[in-house]
């Protein structure tokens, strides 16, 4: 029997996960951190239910390298599957041990106990609590093994409450973010960076920089240049002026072109990632293709574009090390990378997670944490570093572009019998700790001998560029070909759902194109190729919710599009229908979505992820594209990197399938691909012409209409 979460092997004892505070509170620990996704509320719900306590009795210590279990990155929709499952098991085991001790203490049977607010009550009203039992040493609780493979779990009747987020009030009205933390004798610092992450300068105008109002120190080590001052407002203005004083040298990068033209023209390492000689099981007469389509789809580079800029604080410590406060997704690997860069032991570096603004993947959080740690350690300052808006949109890692080419053949009965997909894309993960060497922008600047790690992508089945390149459908013979591009014109790393956005967009658009060429309804065509009953259910349900069969003819200006996907081919199921109106531009009117994420832990948190995912992907798919020239990244402020406006928010209708007897499945990224596919299909239905390249801007729609008169290779 395997453990429900790998975290239990990493942190096998009860004391790794909880402590009983002298004030009667429960100090709970987790490696999964609050990134704005609401995970702290979901974990609180799990812990409350398992331990029979109230949310107000809990203090979380999450993502603190001094105290928390190392559960890796808070990423990949793994927090419920890994962090939540761990806490469920820890809570169940701890409750069971304490219940035995309580029954003995209260001289009753375990079956006579009830549990409320952390107090066990016997049949005649006699009580004891977790804290009393622990303090009176009624059991050796600290060393209870939570990695027991087949533990005896005792169920005690308790009151369940629905948890809401406890962090919102402070974030709304006060100092709820890392940006608001202060250190004694604190300096502010801004790092001088050019219009491209790998831009440099032959000389730094140091004397001019020192004269800028607000700059009290200029710290330089090789290409790492920091402006330091006490007055943050003045320093921000000085930083903007300083950038203009430097003659920036921008690396040679290829001229900007649409991703489907640019990426296949770049040098690649090509391989067959997967080949299955499967036969179309349902086709009565497999053989020559009755219909055959070859289509190319793409998405551009996309920025994280969080509303709050990356920020970190650091101070030197007495042992010659450094303490860092960061909104990183992975405090333990950040600690290891900072220690390695600064030639310190891991024990000399402590990283404490503090909430930042919204995190959708590997953004500037780790980089700015190094910036702060390096300044604190090298120049002995207590320092707070915050990036500028321009830094966020230029030197931060971006989500990689993808070009996806699919050829598929249909049998005479309209079944898919072969499918060949080719993906051109870069590494979708360049996180700290991924690859050999340091993945920290400031470290590359301060230490020119540090080699940038050789890019490598995450292989299947999870996949980076190939995430969800394997269709969820029965397709007969399947070939997945990867054209891995090492060099990229912009810095790339993990952005929400990695390659799944582009790949699912491509698959779902092609599914519609195949159904159209063979005269089949898109929903019926999908159902014909789906065997998993849970997949079929979400597709059928969303068709019913959106009144799919009344959707009308193509080309009316109003369009309905549907798409289905199962994130990573193993997490949550999602089907989605979008209704759009296309005139001069695309306006999304309504989105219906049905999601099956197994057992639901925290319903409102899940809904929030689904709603937010849909709206973010509408923004990506309709508006967003990183732009560059030979002078560097030119989409460097909100005016030239527009995102979704409140004026363009559609009606949302979300249905969650609760499957209490099935394990919880990751769902934070489940809508990303299907939403893009549904938008592509809805726009094609509205226009009667297919636009295959994201974003679906007026310019790209006009291009598609112009090209629709040209023959497509079939």
């Amino acid at each position, binding site marked *: 029997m395997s453990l429900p979460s790998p975290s239990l092997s990493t942190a096998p004892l009860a004391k790794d996960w909880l402590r009983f505070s002298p004030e009667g509170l429960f100090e709970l620990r987790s490696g999964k951190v609050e*990134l*704005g*996704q*609401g995970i702290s509320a979901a974990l609180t719900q799990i812990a409350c239910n398992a331990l029979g306590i109230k949310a107000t009795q809990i203090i979380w210590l999450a993502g603190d390298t001094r105290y928390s279990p190392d559960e890796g990155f808070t990423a990949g929709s793994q927090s419920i599957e890994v962090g939540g499952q761990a806490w469920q098991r820890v809570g169940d085991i701890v409750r069971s041990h304490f219940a035995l001790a309580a029954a003995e203490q209260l001289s009753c049977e375990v079956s006579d106990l009830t549990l409320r607010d952390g107090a066990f009550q016997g049949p005649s009203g006699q009580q004891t609590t977790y804290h009393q039992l622990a303090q009176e040493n009624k059991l050796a609780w600290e060393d209870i093994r939570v990695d027991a493979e087949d533990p005896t779990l005792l169920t005690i009747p308790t009151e369940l409450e629905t948890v*809401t*987020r406890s*962090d*919102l*009030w402070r*974030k*709304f*009205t*006060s*100092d*709820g*973010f890392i*940006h*608001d933390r202060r250190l004694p004798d604190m300096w502010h610092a801004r790092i001088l960076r050019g219009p491209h992450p790998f831009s440099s300068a032959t000389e730094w105008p140091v004397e001019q920089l020192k004269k800028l109002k607000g700059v009290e120190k200029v710290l330089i080590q090789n290409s790492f240049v920091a402006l330091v001052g006490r*007055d*943050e*407002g*003045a320093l*921000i203005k000085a930083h903007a002026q300083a950038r203009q004083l430097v003659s920036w040298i921008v690396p040679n990068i290829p001229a900007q072109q649409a991703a489907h033209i640019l990426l296949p023209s770049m040098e690649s390492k090509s391989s067959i990632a997967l080949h299955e000689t499967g036969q179309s099981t349902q086709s009565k007469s497999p053989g020559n293709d009755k219909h055959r389509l070859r289509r190319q789809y793409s998405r551009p580079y996309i920025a994280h*574009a*969080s*509303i*709050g*800029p990356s920020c970190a604080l650091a101070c030197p410590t007495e042992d010659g090390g450094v303490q860092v406060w960061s909104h990183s997704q992975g405090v333990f690997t950040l600690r290891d990378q900072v220690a390695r860069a600064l030639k310190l032991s891991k024990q000399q570096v402590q990283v404490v997670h503090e*909430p*930042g*603004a*919204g*995190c*959708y993947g590997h953004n500037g959080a780790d980089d700015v944490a190094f910036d702060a740690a390096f300044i604190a350690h090298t120049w002995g300052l207590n320092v707070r570093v*915050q990036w*500028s*808006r321009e830094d966020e949109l230029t030197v931060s890692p971006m989500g990689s572009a993808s070009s996806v080419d699919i050829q598929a053949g249909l049998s005479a009965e309209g079944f898919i019998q072969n499918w060949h997909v080719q993906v051109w894309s870069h590494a979708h993960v360049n996180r700290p700790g991924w690859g050999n060497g340091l993945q920290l922008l400031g470290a590359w600047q301060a230490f020119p001998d540090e080699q940038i790690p050789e890019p490598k992508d995450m292989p299947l089945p999870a996949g980076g560029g190939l995430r969800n390149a394997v269709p969820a459908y029965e397709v007969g013979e399947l070939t997945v070909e990867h054209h891995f591009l090492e060099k990229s014109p912009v810095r790339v790393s993990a952005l929400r759902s990695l390659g799944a956005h582009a790949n699912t967009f491509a698959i779902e658009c092609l599914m519609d194109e195949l159904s159209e060429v063979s005269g089949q309804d898109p929903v019926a065509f999908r159902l014909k190729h789906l065997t998993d009953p849970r997949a079929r259910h979400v597709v059928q349900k969303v068709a019913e919710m959106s009144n799919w069969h009344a959707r009308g003819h193509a080309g009316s200006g109003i369009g309905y599009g549907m798409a289905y996907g199962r994130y990573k081919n193993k997490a949550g199921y999602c089907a989605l229908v979008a209704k759009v109106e296309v005139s001069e531009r695309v306006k999304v009117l309504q989105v219906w979505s049905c999601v099956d994420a197994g057992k639901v832990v925290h319903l*409102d948190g899940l809904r*929030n992820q689904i*709603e*937010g*995912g*849909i*709206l*973010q992907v509408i*923004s990506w798919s309709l508006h967003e594209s990183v732009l560059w020239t030979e002078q560097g990244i030119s989409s460097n*402020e*909100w*005016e030239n990197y527009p*995102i*979704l*406006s*409140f*004026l363009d*928010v559609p009606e*949302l209708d979300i249905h969650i399938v609760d499957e209490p007897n099935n394990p919880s499945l990751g769902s934070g990224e489940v809508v990303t691909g299907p939403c893009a596919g549904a938008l592509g299909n809805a726009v094609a239905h509205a226009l009667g012409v297919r636009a295959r390249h994201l974003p679906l801007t007026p310019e790209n729609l006009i291009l598609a209409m112009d090209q629709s008169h040209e023959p497509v290779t079939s």
Partner: protein
Amino acid sequence: MIKLQHNRDQVSSTQDPQGDLLHFLREQCSDASVRFGCGSGHCGACTVLIDGQAQNSCTTPVWAGEGKHIQTAKGLPEDEVGRIVLAAFVEEQAAQCAYCISGILVRITGLLKNQPNASVAEIKDSLSRHLCRCGAHARIMRAVLLAQKNIQHVTTLP
């Protein structure tokens, strides 16, 4: 010396009057609820009310606040309308990361004071000065409509 009212407090600044109001509030007035987002007036994270009108504090110099009443999200719990708006945002759990919300709370408080019967289109237009990246827009709209309903209910009580 610049004198102004920050929520309920009378404050004065001996600092550079050309400095931005955002950092004056954050640093001199210890008001962390005013958030830096872009520094160029595009995202709305730093929105405050100046004599009841929503403004970006990042592009407003301190001198422009002379003699004025500056209201921020920190002061909303003590404001009759602000309190109701805040409660509605908590009830609807209207946020993901919440970084954009302080500015939105302030603008909506100003809107519902000036136009308690604002239409959905007017509310959306008002919110269009704010960017949200997490996609909390739909629940933000629900919270605003709930606040509007609750304010109307309070003001129609005998």
